[in-house]
């Protein structure tokens, strides 16, 4: 018989430990990783950083022609901040973003909660909700430009002739503002809804059963189970919707062109008029750098606040 023998009381010795690596050793080893990052650095520099430097270059010069430039220091920056037109556009854009967030986030979450969790209607609901997201910005603008028209648009005509409310976005600033806001809600609430829906789907069924056993109401279930689980996706949704609405351009450009008057002249519309329309590249450069900074700072603030309150 070839059975084994019992091992007892044997002391197992390990090999002597290798000397600890010093910090300098580790640093030298890590350097190879830079070669892997290099292609990204080059492509980002070529597509983003170098063009941005051109803008920085413009922002400190008064350019009469490519060969005739005058260095003006920070003059354009002072002017960009001081100009009442710019200040009004800033407030307008901030107000628009705030309204977009106030409407789209709760509405998107509500749609996500109402969407079916299983069965045939899941795919049907998903396709239906995602539809506006598949339409290009300028087409959305064109659709709403016609839809909201008082004379030939289905929406505008219905409001005027069926509901009996005077509505004309080409003449009335409030009507124009509402048209742009409703259009943005129509176009982008689905994004919030889809993100929230994905977040809700990741909640295990036992959570809902446990709430049922406790006798928790629908609102309590939403407040204490669904909403906390949505924190992550809602942070992303709020950031995306803020950035996008703060930089809105195409749709108001197509629908109202910034009017009537300056009613829907958001920062981006003002900026493009300045840079491409009047070819004031100096002021436009300074203005766009400030614009860029505002977006960065606000996103940072949003992100910090939203992630900190989670803990």
């Amino acid at each position, binding site marked *: 018989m*070839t059975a084994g023998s019992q091992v007892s009381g044997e002391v197992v010795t390990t090999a002597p430990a290798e000397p600890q690596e010093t910090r300098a050793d580790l640093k030298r080893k890590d350097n190879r990783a830079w070669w892997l990052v290099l292609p990204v650095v080059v492509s980002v520099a070529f597509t983003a950083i170098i063009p941005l430097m051109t803008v920085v270059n413009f922002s400190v010069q008064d350019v009469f022609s490519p060969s005739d430039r005058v260095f003006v220091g920070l003059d354009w920056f002072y002017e960009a901040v001081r100009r009442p037109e710019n200040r009004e556009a800033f407030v307008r854009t901030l107000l628009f973003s705030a309204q977009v967030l106030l409407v789209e986030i709760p509405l998107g979450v509500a749609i996500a909660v109402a969407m079916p969790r299983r069965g045939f209607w899941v795919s049907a609901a998903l396709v239906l909700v995602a539809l506006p997201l598949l339409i290009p910005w300028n087409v959305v603008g064109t659709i709403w430009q016609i839809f909201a028209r008082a004379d030939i648009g289905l929406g505008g005509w219905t409001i005027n002739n069926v509901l009996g409310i005077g509505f004309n976005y080409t003449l009335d600033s409030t009507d124009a503002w509402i048209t742009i806001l409703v259009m943005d809600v129509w176009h982008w609430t689905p994004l919030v809804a889809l993100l929230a829906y994905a977040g809700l789907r990741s909640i295990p069924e036992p959570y809902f059963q446990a709430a049922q056993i406790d006798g928790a109401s629908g609102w309590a279930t939403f407040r204490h189970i669904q909403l906390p689980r949505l924190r992550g996706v809602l942070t992303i949704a709020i950031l995306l919707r803020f950035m996008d609405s703060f930089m809105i351009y195409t749709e108001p450009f197509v629908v109202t062109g910034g009017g009537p008057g300056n009613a829907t002249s958001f920062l981006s519309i003002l900026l493009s008029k300045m840079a491409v329309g009047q070819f004031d590249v100096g002021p436009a450069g300074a203005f766009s750098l400030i614009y860029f900074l505002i977006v960065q700072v606000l996103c940072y603030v949003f992100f910090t606040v939203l992630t900190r309150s989670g803990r």
Partner: protein
Amino acid sequence: MTLILDGVSVRQRGETWLDDVHLELPNGMTTLVGPMTAGKTTLMRVAAGLLPPDSGRVVVHEKDVTGISVRKRSVAFVYQQFINYPSLTVYENIASPLRLDPRFRKNEIDPRVREVAELMGISDLLGRRPAELSGGQQQRTAIARALARPVDVLLLDEPLANLDFKLREQLRADLKTMFADTPGVVLYSTADPNEALTFAARTVVLGEGRVQHVGDVADMYAHPPTLAVAATLSDPPLNLLPGVVRDGRIEVLGTSFPAPRAHATGHDVMLGIRPHQVRIARDGPGALELPAEIRLAEVTGSATFLHLLLQGDRHLVAHLPGTQLFTPGETTVVYVDPAHIFVFDEAGGRLLATSAAEVDLHG
């Protein structure tokens, strides 16, 4: 208080999950043991009222509650996953079922929360949120939530399955004392036979959606009435070898031993051998000798699991004490005392002969 499942069947997507289950559970603890997909969770969900049965009745305290929503029933449920309200503190998690219970007055809630927290050993964690707790602490919170208000039926669905080994041992010991003075019916499900044996409570063996057997778990371990019960309660898994009765002896893999009971020649039987009953040295006369090839030896420290290949490509696992060293590929002979062999009917899986030597385990 009694919980009665009367002819309960559940069918989903053309599959039968529970098949005509009749059970009567008295006050106190009952263990529900069965392999995965035996229908344990389904049975518990039916008992709770989370899943309406396709047929049959659920009766609690002589009242038919089959159609009554879980919201209106007096049940508590602990899940395998650690289910707590993520936005609430441990204190609020335990208090929330009490706040919704009209039997509790406002000034009774705080002492009760502290009492249950004390019982579960989480008193110093009351201010934390579930995300700041370890798995064991989260499950303690979930169990505290379930214990907070007195219920007719307390259901625990594999509550320790997702915990690591040491926490499981510790919490299991705590639970055993805790259930001793819990009013109402406590049904505790597990896939781990050792857990069922440790609780030593009334035990229901569930397999393939049917109740296989109900009784004392130690009795069942010593005298498994069917192959299914023996297999469910054996960890590591029961070794199975086919045999045939011939002239008062049972022939198996070229050798034979006297049949414990008289059976007609030619009767097919299935032999069940627990891994710890396999020896590598002859320890008495009359032992069954099985030549084998060593395939693998798993050493856990306190035990060695020897995987063997027998004649006719049959596998056998031997559970040997201590650390023992073997060389895979070598041949050996293993021995089994016929007194430790369960002889089951090949066709129906019923126990034909019980082994006398296992009985002393009960005492």
